[in-house]
């Protein structure tokens, strides 16, 4: 979504505009649901989380500050935190090894294939160690310590790998 459109959308949302909320949902629910699915690994639970997250967004849109990041980053944080809380509550997270989560996510189907199919193939070429760092941190909400333990690499490696992974990703997306 272009920056100007996003600003307009946020303004409307802050005024309690339901049509704006519908637009928001159409634009971002797929990305958010994909991430929730990665974390909770259960369709019913994922739907609950997305629903709660959306309600929370509606209620708390006033606290969104566009100087601190894009709308999507904020949406992602709200949603991801809810999903993680849910997992902690159900204490399933420990029992769900990262490999399983990653594998599931790789099989997840994209719903807007038109404009991203070429890029998607390119991203598939992203080095596995880069892919896992981005996925674990961004989609699964793992801390650096958790990634370090999970991948069995030193914390310093996680840090450098994070930057290199994103540089690589940006290069691919630009191509």
């Amino acid at each position, binding site marked *: 979504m272009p920056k100007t459109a996003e600003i307009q959308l946020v303004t409307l949302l802050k005024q309690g505009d339901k049509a704006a909320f519908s637009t928001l949902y159409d634009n971002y629910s797929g*990305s958010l649901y994909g991430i929730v699915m990665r974390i909770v690994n259960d369709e019913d639970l994922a739907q609950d989380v997305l629903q709660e997250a959306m309600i929370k967004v*509606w*209620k708390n849109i006033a*606290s969104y500050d566009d100087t601190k990041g894009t709308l999507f980053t904020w949406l992602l944080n709200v949603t991801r935190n809810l999903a993680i809380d849910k997992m902690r509550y159900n204490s399933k997270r420990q029992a769900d090894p990262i490999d399983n989560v990653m594998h599931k996510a790789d099989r997840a189907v994209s719903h807007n294939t038109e404009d991203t199919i070429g890029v998607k193939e390119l991203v598939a070429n992203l080095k596995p160690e880069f892919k896992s760092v981005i996925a674990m941190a961004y989609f699964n909400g793992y801390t650096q310590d958790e990634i370090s333990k999970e991948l069995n690499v030193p914390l310093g490696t996680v840090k450098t790998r994070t930057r290199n992974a994103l540089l690589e990703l940006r290069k691919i997306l630009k191509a």
Partner: protein
Amino acid sequence: MDPKQYIESGILERYLLGHCTTEEIQEVQCMARVFAEVQAELDAIEQALQTYASMQAVAPPADLKAKILARLDDQPNAETSQELRETKVVPMQSSSTGNKWAIAAAACFLLAMGLGYLYNNSQKQLGLLNSQMAAMQNNLDAANALTLSTRQQLQKTGNMLTMINDTAIQRVSMKGLPIAQNALATIYWNKQNKQVYLNINNMPQPATGKQYQLWAIADGKPVDLGVFDITNDSLLMLKMHDIQNPQAFAVTLEPTGGSVSPTLDQMYVMGAL
């Protein structure tokens, strides 16, 4: 801090992935506000992540949207939410955490102002600092040179004192001859190891192509003890050639490089033991 280095540190990536501490989050937000290139980098990373996320998207079941929209009616929106307003205001008033945040925000503002000012003036400041540093370096070099030369002077004075007090050393004062009545030079001859040191107290600078030569008179014959140049260092002890049993010392002016035998009418100073 240099924005380029800041970007390369990888903190922006960690910030967007939620791996930063509270202090780091504040810092990143400050830096992004102050430096346009930090903000641009942050935007670019965020955009890449968002695109990546959209590629991993999974469509939620079609009926979910209607369910959520139906629930909105029960939920007060941000604008009207009393609860939200309270939770936003109360902690700021009552808890010390609120104060901390207020202080942190103020600190951030000050930091941002400071950084902005520094950055805007950086070229000027840098130029000024560089020239100041160069000047200080020069002063330091000069001071170091002075210290070194002082130390060398002290060393020489020490050497001289040692020689004067050494009972094995015989001091021979060579006084000016009619050709240069005010000339004066001193020989320190060691009776034990036969070493000869020359100290020039006062001798005129020789013309170009000329050099002074020191002679010893031993067994009635002149013996060459070497040529020397005039320096303005009154403490300098020139080591000349050794001599076994001198009866006198003399200095003549000779063509550069010295002569085999002294030019007697060019004798400047002489002194006998």
